[in-house]
C-alpha cells in the first residue's frame, strides 16, 4: 500500500436518524489508488457512510477530509468539492429527459464551465471509456440497465474526480449485465482511480479490492486485505456474514 496522504480521511463519523444511531463513530481512511470494499448486513450503515463522504447525508459529528478539503467546514464550497468526488448509485439516476451524452455534458458545462464543443468532446471520450461510444445519442429509456449504469459512471468520471464512490452499482442489474459494469470498474482501477465500493460482488472484491471493511450496527467491526476478511475473519459476526454470502 502507498504512503501518500490519504484521499479520504474520515474520523469519528456519527449519524442519527431520529433516535436511531446509524453510524457510531466510524473512521475511514482511503489512500490514493486504493480500492476499498465495504461489506456488511443490510441496515449496517454502509450507504449512510458512503453518502456522508460527499455530504448527501450530513453527519452529526466527526470530520471528513477529501483530497485535503475539510468537507464539513462551513467555509468549504461544497459544490466545488463534490465535483472531485464521483458517485454512482444503485438506481443509476440518469436524467431521463437527456441523451447519454447530454447526461455527461451537464456538469461539464454548468460546474466546470466548459463550452458546448469541449463538453461534447469530453463526454464522448468518457462514454467511449465505458464502451458506449455508439450509444451516445440514446435516451436512458433506450438503454439496458447495464448500459445506463455505465453512462452514470461516465457522467461521474468525466469530471475527473479524485475518488469514486459506488453504492451497490450492480444490485439492480440482471445477472448477465453485471459483468459489463464490473469490467468498467476494473479498468478504472487499473487506470489508478481511488474507489470506495459498497457491493455484494464478493468475487470482484476478492480479485480487485486492496482492503475490505466489514460493517455491523453502524461500526467498523473489522478490516483488512480480502484474503484475511474472506478466509480468516477474526470476528464471529464477520464469519457468519461471509458464510451466508458464500451460500448464494
Amino acid at each position, binding site marked *: 500500500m502507498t504512503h501518500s496522504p490519504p484521499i479520504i480521511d474520515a474520523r469519528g463519523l456519527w449519524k442519527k436518524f431520529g433516535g436511531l444511531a446509524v453510524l457510531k463513530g466510524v473512521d475511514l481512511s482511503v489512500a490514493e489508488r486504493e480500492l476499498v470494499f465495504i461489506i456488511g448486513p443490510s441496515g449496517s450503515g454502509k450507504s449512510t457512510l458512503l453518502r456522508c463522504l460527499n455530504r448527501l447525508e450530513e453527519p452529526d459529528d466527526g470530520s471528513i477530509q477529501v483530497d485535503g478539503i475539510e468537507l464539513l467546514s462551513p467555509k468549504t464550497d461544497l459544490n466545488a468539492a*463534490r465535483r472531485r468526488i464521483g*458517485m454512482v448509485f444503485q438506481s443509476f439516476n*440518469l436524467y431521463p*429527459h437527456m441523451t447519454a451524452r447530454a447526461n455527461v455534458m*451537464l456538469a461539464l458545462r454548468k*460546474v466546470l464551465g466548459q463550452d458546448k464543443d469541449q463538453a461534447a468532446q469530453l463526454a464522448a471520450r468518457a462514454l467511449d471509456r465505458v464502451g458506449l461510444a455508439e450509444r451516445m445519442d440514446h435516451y436512458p*429509456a433506450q438503454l439496458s440497465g447495464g448500459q445506463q449504469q455505465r453512462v452514470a459512471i461516465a*457522467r461521474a468520471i468525466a469530471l475527473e474526480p479524485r475518488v469514486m464512490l459506488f453504492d451497490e452499482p450492480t444490485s439492480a442489474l440482471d445477472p448477465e449485465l453485471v459483468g459489463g459494469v464490473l469490467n468498467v470498474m476494473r479498468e478504472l482501477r487499473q487506470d489508478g482511480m481511488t474507489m470506495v465500493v459498497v457491493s455484494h460482488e464478493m468475487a470482484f472484491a476478492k480479485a480487485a479490492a486492496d482492503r475490505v471493511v466489514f460493517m455491523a450496527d453502524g461500526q467498523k467491526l473489522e478490516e483488512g486485505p480480502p484474503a484475511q476478511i474472506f478466509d480468516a475473519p477474526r470476528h464471529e459476526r464477520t464469519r457468519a456474514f461471509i458464510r451466508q454470502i458464500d451460500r448464494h
Partner: protein
Amino acid sequence: MDALNSFIFSFFNLKVMAQYLPLVAQGLGLTVVLALLIVVCGLALGLALAVIRSFGLRVLNWAIIFTVDVFRALPPLVIIVLLFFGLPAAGLSISGFAATWLSLTLVLMAFSEEIFWAGITAVPKGQWEAARSTGLSFLQTLRMVVLPQALRITVPPLTNRTIAITKGTALGSVVGVAEILGASQSAMSFSANPSPLTLGAIAYLVLFIPVVALGRWIETRFAWKR
C-alpha cells in the same frame, strides 16, 4: 312545425345573427385577451410559488399553502364580486375587466401551484442526489434536472385546469365585461331575440376547440419514453 319554426326564429335567426356578429366578434376578441392574460400571469405565479415552496422555508410555505387553499376553496364568481364591489368600498376602484382578470389569475395561480408542486415532488430523490453529487447547485438542479421532468408530468392536469379556468372568463359578464357572453347578452336584449346566444356558443367553440386540440398536442409532444 310551428314549434320548430319558432325555435329557429328564436335561436337561429340569421338576420339577427348577422346584425350582431360584429358585437359578438368583439366579445371574442376581448375573451382572447382576457384568457391570455390570465393564462400567462396565473401559470407564471403558480410556477413561481411552487419554486419558492421547494426551498422548504417553513413559515413561507405555510403562507403559500394558506393562500393557495383560500383561492382553491372560493368560487371564482365570489372572488370577482368581492373584488369588484369590495375594493371600491376600500377606496380602490377596479374595472370589471381587471376584477375578472385578477380573480381568475389568482385561482389559476392557486391550482397550478398545486399541480407544479405535485410535479416537483414526483421527481425521484435520486435525480436530486445524482445532480448535486456532480457539483450542481440547488437552483441549477431544480432548473435543469427537476423542472423539465416535473413540467412533463404536469402538462395533462395543467392543460385541463387551465382550460376550465379560462372558460370562467364568462363570469366577467356579471360585472359588465363585454366578453363573449356579456356581448351576446347585450345583443340579446337589444334585439329581443336569443339568437346572439347561439352566436356566443359558436364563438366559444371556435375559441376553445383549438385550445383543447393544442392541449392534446402539447401532451403528446411533451410525453417521452420512460
